């Protein structure tokens, strides 16, 4: 089986021939997100939020908010005209040389509903708003969902992806930012529309949520999420893989906060972590390894890393099933 065929077996809940490595399975396309949501090199996004580039990625400029009161959002949030964002050009550039027979085109869509609210008004204001003015929050999420849906539709037209990975970090290392009840009442209805707009066009929806978000994985699956990306070990990954086999693939498993992700972790440590993932999660069959190697320059996937080669070699050699 090639990567694509093997992936389909996993998706259907069957026994795959091998456990994939994220970067080998996908042709990741992230320039569309650069155009619609967050500039990867920093600077202003189409809404006027200034992003700061760091080694780890971009982050909204701290303490610089578009508005403080969610009731005012309509005064400050002006939705960009999607036709002017240059999505077509970057898609053409990114897809050059892509082998669709082997790899699956996976288009990133960053800055989901909650992250966008936080980008506009800061985490504290955003989180307090969920309690103080839920009606305005809900109205904001609905409008922002319309924008995301329009962007995703354009992505589907120009990239013809197999997967859209939608990023919305709703959790800390210890638990959700907000209670599951608040997520379900304010964010989930709009989130559901975003998911359905993608899946109804035959595209797989992958949900990226860092942190300990296991309390809402059931919600994700119920709404049609087929892949959970950035699955961190603070969650019961094995339990989740067992429970949702045939309905959900888990991407992650790497101890991204532990010693193996500290700067200066040895090649041996990195290999040992990959083998731990192989042994612990591989036999479940609905698992994809996403190594998180950080070095002084940033994330190894973007900047390269001498430890990556030996780790990949070890991964291929070990029996993961």
């Amino acid at each position, binding site marked *: 089986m090639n990567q694509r065929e093997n992936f389909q077996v996993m998706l259907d809940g069957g026994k795959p021939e091998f456990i994939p490595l994220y970067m080998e399975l996908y042709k990741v396309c992230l320039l569309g997100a650069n155009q619609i949501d967050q500039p990867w090199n920093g600077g202003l996004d189409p809404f006027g939020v200034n992003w700061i580039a760091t080694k*780890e990625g971009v*982050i909204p400029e701290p303490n610089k908010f578009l508005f403080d009161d969610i009731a005012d959002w309509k005064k400050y949030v002006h939705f960009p005209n999607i036709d002017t964002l240059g999505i077509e050009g970057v898609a053409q550039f990114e897809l050059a040389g892509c082998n669709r027979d082997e790899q699956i085109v996976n288009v990133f869509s960053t800055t989901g509903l909650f992250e966008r609210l936080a980008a506009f008004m800061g985490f504290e204001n955003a989180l307090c708003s969920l309690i103080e003015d839920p009606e305005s929050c809900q109205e904001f999420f609905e409008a922002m969902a319309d924008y995301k849906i329009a962007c995703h539709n354009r992505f589907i037209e120009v990239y013809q992806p197999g997967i859209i990975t939608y990023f919305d970090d709703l959790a800390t290392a210890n638990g959700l*930012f907000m*209670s599951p009840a608040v997520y379900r009442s304010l964010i989930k209805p709009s989130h559901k529309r975003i998911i359905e707009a993608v899946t109804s066009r035959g595209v797989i929806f992958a949900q990226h949520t860092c942190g300990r978000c296991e309390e809402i994985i059931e919600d994700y699956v119920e709404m049609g999420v087929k892949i959970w990306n950035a699955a961190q070990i603070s969650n019961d990954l094995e339990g989740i893989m067992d429970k949702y086999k045939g309905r959900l693939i888990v991407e992650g498993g790497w101890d991204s906060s532990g010693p193996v992700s500290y*700067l200066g972790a040895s090649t041996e440590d990195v290999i040992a972590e990959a083998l731990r993932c192989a042994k612990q999660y591989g036999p479940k069959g609905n698992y994809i390894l996403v190594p998180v190697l950080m070095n002084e320059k940033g994330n190894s996937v973007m900047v390269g890393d001498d430890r990556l080669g030996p780790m990949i070699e070890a991964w291929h050699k070990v029996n993961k099933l």
Partner: protein
Amino acid sequence: MPKMEELKAKVEAGKAKLVPGLVQEALDAGNDAQSILKAMIESMGVVGDKFSSGEVFIPEMLMAAKGMAKGVEVLKPLLAGGSSTSLGTCIIGTVEGDLHDIGKNLVAMMIESAGFEVVDLGVDVPIAKFIEAIKETKNVTLVALSGLLTTTMPALKATVEAIKASGMTGFKIIVGGAPVTPEFAASIGSDAYAPDAGGAAVKAKELVS
């Protein structure tokens, strides 16, 4: 319900808009400012414990802290020297190379709600700025360092070491952040570690008492 009990209940429930009025009513009912402050600090302790145990989430904790801050504003003119605290001053910041502030801000709020004055240096704070702030601030009893990224853990270590090497004394150093463990905190020479904002407030009080 007696005024003080009502006040405590509203702080715990995060009814921020109601707190200042209830503080004033508690004062009008003959309660002194220190007792009212103490009651609110106790309530915030309850909120912190509930947060640490997963009973409430960050928005509820933020609203409670917001309520208490509004209540303290009413009390401040009546407290000795305008100070709302007796536990000294906490210098807090996210270490150099890290722009994340949510955890740091929550810890700052909870530590303030526990009875400290807080001087927040913000994010991406160089070592020299921490040292300068400790030197120039009166009654520093606590220095709190935050770091979310594994790549900024060396900066946490370097900051703790530099503060210790500066020869300044009279305060404790507490560290925290997603990749930080009690073992790492001890290995870099800090005095304490807390896993979350509620725990940080509890630990902060322990450190200075």
